[in-house]
């Protein structure tokens, strides 16, 4: 990476990040619109969770990763502490890989 490339990525990323809060300031949104925004953020997060647990690049990520995430998700659903959720997911995935499951 050249310094110029790093700075370009930084400037672009910052502009993207700043745009939301600034736009939000300029316009007063009705309650329903605000509710829709936060639903949209949840939808984006779930899409991110799905792609980052099931795919690597353009391919299937293998079984170890989604199984670990699913076990963590199940623990979260049963209201396990957050720390346990994170550790369980990593441990299950690492364990499966150690056992030879990709």
């Amino acid at each position, binding site marked *: 990476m050249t310094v110029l490339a790093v700075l370009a990525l930084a400037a672009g990323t910052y502009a993207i990040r700043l745009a939301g809060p600034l736009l939000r300031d300029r316009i007063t949104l009705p309650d329903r619109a605000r509710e829709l925004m936060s639903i949209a953020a949840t939808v984006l997060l779930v899409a991110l969770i799905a792609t*980052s647990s099931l795919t690597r690049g353009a391919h299937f990520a293998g079984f170890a990763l989604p199984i670990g995430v699913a076990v963590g998700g199940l623990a979260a659903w049963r209201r396990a502490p957050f720390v346990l959720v994170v550790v369980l997911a990593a441990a299950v995935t690492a364990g499966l890989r150690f056992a030879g499951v990709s």
Partner: protein
Amino acid sequence: MRSTWRTPDPALLRDVLAIAASVAVSGASFGAIAVGSGEPWWIPSLMSVVVFAGGAQFMAVGIVAAGGSPVAAVLAGLLLNLRFLPFGLAVGEVLGRSPVGKLVGSHLLTDETVAFALAQREPARARTAFWLCGGTLFVAWNAGVVGGTLVGRSIGDPAVFGLDAAFPAALLALVLPALRDRPTLRAALVGAVVALATTPFVPAGVPVLLGLVGMLALRLPVPVRR
């Protein structure tokens, strides 16, 4: 508006520290991978301070390491980060009213900070969660990267520790409460399917944005029985 700040409770602090630990190890692997692929020692650190977006950083360094041009690396990283725009629209309020708060807080918009803020019911708690999480993760990520560049390749592949599962699982735990709302759940599931189905065909970062199509599911008639 400035009085709405809550002292962070121990539970919130503990959750933030849990995710900070995994972010620090990811940062260390980023530093190690970047230096290992031939970058000078200061590039990963500079990048981590000014870009502060793990996914885009891994991707940009990976593209250059694979022989891609810096321009391609920058464009791919920006595409991946485009989701921060809707995120900023959704949680913009937690940054507060002051211009300084907005300028600094915007840099701390990440998947984790947004998820932490959204998971809180009251605005005051959301604000505390956002700033606590953002500040802690910024320190953890950058400290991890410095450590990784120093230790170098001996850290190895973070996948061995299953850290790639920690990130989605943490986000999942944070969004679960919001998914108890049926229409939100429906929109999110449709969005996830769209994102997964389009992943093989479009550049990284685009599938997640296409997941917004799931918002249309909010308009679907609700089945009478389920």
